[in-house]
């Protein structure tokens, strides 16, 4: 007896969750809000109103590697990142704030938010050390859960974004899969300047 390989079993095994299957924006907002209150200050709230990020923002992120793989990216203006650092350090803030201080503090906020996002995802997963700079590119726009908030009136974006390209869309076996998936074509983020 012979059988025809239709590819159905391979496609079923290729099923990979996207972040919107696993996480809702309100969870990210709640995690970030708790981090802000604990790290930045008791009265420091994030207001869920989108604002325009500056043209030269700075991002801090951690990578999550596990059943879902991607990055948790915080993006804001450089002055706002410096203000966050001052608030985080409180009385321990140095007289002269250096770029290194800002990278360290903003990275730690990303680490705390990212660690708690990781805990909300199926595990086990590994968490990277934080990185600061231009945000990693969005690989698959369908695999992004993003919130835009204001802190002290300044915009902050928090993006939980997959690191893997989109899977091929399921297609009937007789169709040619080579020209069907627009997700592979130069994914760009619709909103962030360097995202």
């Amino acid at each position, binding site marked *: 007896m012979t059988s025809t390989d239709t590819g159905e079993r391979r496609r079923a095994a290729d099923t990979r969750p996207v972040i919107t299957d696993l996480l809702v924006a309100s969870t990210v907002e709640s995690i970030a809000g708790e981090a802000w*209150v604990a790290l930045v200050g008791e009265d420091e709230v994030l207001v869920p109103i989108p604002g325009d990020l500056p043209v030269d923002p700075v991002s801090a992120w951690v990578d999550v590697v596990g059943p879902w793989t991607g990055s948790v990216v915080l993006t804001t203006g450089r002055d706002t990142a410096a203000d966050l650092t001052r608030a985080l350090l409180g009385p321990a803030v140095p007289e002269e704030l250096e770029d290194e201080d800002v990278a360290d503090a903003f990275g730690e906020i990303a680490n705390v938010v990212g660690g708690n996002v990781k805990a909300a995802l199926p595990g086990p997963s590994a968490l990277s050390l934080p990185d600061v700079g231009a945000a990693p590119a969005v690989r698959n726009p369908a695999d992004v859960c993003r919130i835009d908030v204001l802190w002290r009136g300044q915009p902050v974006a928090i993006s939980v974004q997959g690191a893997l390209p989109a899977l091929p869309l399921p297609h009937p076996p007789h169709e040619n899969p080579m020209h069907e998936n627009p997700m592979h074509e130069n994914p760009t983020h619709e909103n962030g300047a360097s995202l």
Partner: protein
Amino acid sequence: MRALVIDDSRAMRRIVTAILEGLGYEVRGAGHGREGLDVLDEGWIPELVCVDWNMPVMDGLQFVSAVRSNPAWRSITLMMVTSESEHTQIVRALAAGAHEYVIKPFTADAIRDKLGLLGLLPQEVAL
């Protein structure tokens, strides 16, 4: 009382240090587990070590295992202070020899409560 704070984030070291100094601790800091072991090797033995998990060079879990493998450091209380909040990770840390586990973000009260449970609040603070 002495405490060693091990975290690769200087900001987080400053925050934890400020909390512990406010409770009356004499505090030293280290940027990763290997630096922490160097402090202990110098003979500066604290009652408490607050150690992060994810760090370069030597992570917190490796540090905990190293401390627990040395009988001379048996008296040290180890508290993980980390954003690793998966249940399996907490179990791993406790199994390796950590006494307590604090998940970031935390408040100063949370640290104080944990120290109270461990009997590590300086007497004048505990009263």
